[in-house]
């Protein structure tokens, strides 16, 4: 009987069989883990709400042929305040969706795990910052190695007149390198984005209402372009 200990943050779950659920965890050591929680959908399940998304848990797994079975769960952090606030839950949904898209199974994911943990903690402890999702997305881009160039031209490295942004070139462009399709950026936006990249998620710079909107739109499009998928959690709440 092969039992092993691991920890992770619950990304999502889906019904499996009569009363079971497949629970997908992000473990710092093993990346995405697909596990089975038996009987978890019954009201009297001993797992209770411990395997709901966003919960950071310590688990004992029984190794199976395809999926490991969860035999014990204890909560490291449940983020209860986050779960009571609609905007925070929605932001957390995007955070989870992004790491779910970039993390792999059976492959360490310390940086993605830490990013998610810091994101959830920032939501849990502070008031909701308007820029937390774009800031998180920029940091996620860094983790997967697709961080946009913000301080030097993505094509030639020049640092003059960087007022265009190209999704395909991967960042800002100087007047010599810019192509027809590059976005013209509002003045100050590049510096604003760089400020988000440089700050901790729990101490982001003050919000500029105009630049904040632009930043959210640009960063979202940048990530969707490079991950080659739409962010469903953001699309779901576009009304």
């Amino acid at each position, binding site marked *: 009987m092969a039992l092993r200990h691991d920890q992770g943050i619950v990304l999502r779950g889906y019904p499996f069989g009569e009363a079971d659920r497949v629970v997908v965890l992000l473990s710092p050591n093993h990346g995405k883990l697909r596990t089975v929680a038996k009987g978890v959908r019954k009201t009297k399940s001993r797992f209770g*709400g*411990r395997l*709901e998304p966003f919960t950071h848990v310590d688990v004992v797994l029984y190794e199976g042929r395809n999926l490991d079975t969860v035999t014990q769960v204890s909560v490291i952090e449940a983020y*209860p305040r986050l779960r009571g606030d609609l905007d925070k839950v*929605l932001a957390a949904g995007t955070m*989870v969706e992004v790491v779910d898209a970039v993390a792999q199974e059976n492959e360490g994911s310390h940086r993605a795990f830490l990013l998610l943990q810091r994101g959830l903690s920032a939501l849990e402890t502070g008031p909701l910052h308007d820029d937390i999702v774009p800031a998180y997305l920029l940091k996620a881009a860094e983790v997967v190695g697709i961080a946009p160039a913000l301080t030097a031209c993505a094509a030639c490295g020049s640092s003059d007149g960087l007022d265009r942004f190209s999704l395909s070139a991967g960042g800002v462009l100087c007047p010599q390198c810019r192509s027809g399709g590059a976005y013209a950026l509002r003045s100050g936006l590049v510096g604003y984005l760089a400020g988000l990249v440089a700050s901790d998620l729990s101490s982001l710079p003050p919000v500029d209402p105009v630049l904040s909107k632009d930043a959210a739109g640009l960063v979202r499009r940048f990530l969707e372009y490079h991950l080659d998928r739409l962010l*469903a*959690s953001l699309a779901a709440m576009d009304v």
Partner: protein
Amino acid sequence: MFEAPVQKLIDELARLPGIGQKSAQRIAFHLLHVEETDARRLAEAVVEMRERVRLCARCFNVTDSEECSICRDLRRDPSAICVVERAQDVVVVERTHEFRGRYHVLGGAISPIEGVGPEQLRLRELIARIEPEGVTEVIVATNPTVEGDTTALYLARSLKPLGLTVTRLASGLPVGGDLDYADELTLGRALSGRREM
């Protein structure tokens, strides 16, 4: 592979929720061995349900007429609506005999991660009922999951500005369960929702 007609039934059964290949085979062979009238009765029940049952025009519960029996019942209190995720949940709440109002079936829960937003649910239809039916209280009976919680928070935000009382089913300890099995979140909610005795 079994004989074609048997295999066809096994394949159909195996597509049902919670039924795997093994169970599908067992059911198929069971149906092969029972009286033909019994097997026929099952087939007819499926066909009849599909032909006669539709969704209530008001609350989206299942019904065999324009409106469901609860919406047609004049003794029900129209000022209170209990919002549930699925039609099955109506039956569950009804069994408690604690609720005398009407229902509204959303058809799911908000799940941003799965791309299910408010537009995919019957929220507009709920809001359209408030005025004509004189609704003053909405009781949110979504599941105590992240999706159910998110839906409840969204409903509260949409409905409170209309002057409605919005309440949520208290979530707490299962009757007959052991206290030491309760997880932190459940226990925390049970504590904050405690009642004087």
